[in-house]
């Protein structure tokens, strides 16, 4: 069975600094997707970034980038130039077909 582990329940970062959120997963599949979702206090789930497992190149979306290590089954999220609006719960997720597995989340605090 697939599992997704986020080992950091909470993290804090100074505004304008860089922070990395960790995610590891376990799967025997070779083709799948990985995602980071953001949940701000409004509770709306927002897609931050997506990675296709067959692509070696790490995905980037503006200030958000991932470090995807397929062999190590690691998928960390780097947020550069942290902003107050980045404060949220971040969930890592694994997907193949109808199966979607979420990690327990990391709460990110931004310190002004």
């Amino acid at each position, binding site marked *: 069975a697939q599992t997704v582990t986020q080992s950091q329940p909470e993290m804090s970062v100074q505004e304008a600094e860089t922070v990395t959120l960790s995610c590891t997963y376990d799967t025997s599949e070779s083709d799948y997707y990985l995602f980071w979702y953001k949940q701000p206090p409004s509770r709306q789930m927002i897609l931050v970034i997506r990675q296709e497992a067959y692509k070696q190149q790490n995905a980037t979306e503006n200030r958000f980038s991932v470090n995807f290590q397929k062999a190590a089954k690691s998928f960390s999220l780097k947020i550069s130039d942290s902003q107050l609006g980045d404060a949220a719960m971040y969930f890592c997720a694994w997907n*193949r077909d109808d199966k*979607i597995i979420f990690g327990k989340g990391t709460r990110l605090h931004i310190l002004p």
Partner: protein
Amino acid sequence: NAGVTQTPKFRILKIGQSMTLQCTQDMNHNYMYWYRQDPGMGLKLIYYSVGAGITDKGEVPNGYNVSRSTTEDFPLRLELAAPSQTSVYFCASKDRVGTGELFFGEGSRLTVL
């Protein structure tokens, strides 16, 4: 472009009452999901469906029922509400093919007193 629509957004129930959370999506997605999220916690899968007429249990199905008579609608029924069902409920959908992205509704906050 509505996406995934959930109603109601807020509801207070008394113990033993029943209710239905409505979910509809206009993206013609095959897969639909119901999650619950307790305060400060992650998402727990209640039920999911891979197409009209097909439903399956997730990790916390007890006390809930679902149906999927159309591609668009996936209502969640709570029978005999209990305080343990106080939570925020999210409906989500995704396409069978494509990017794998899960599209979420805005959530429904349910309180059972």
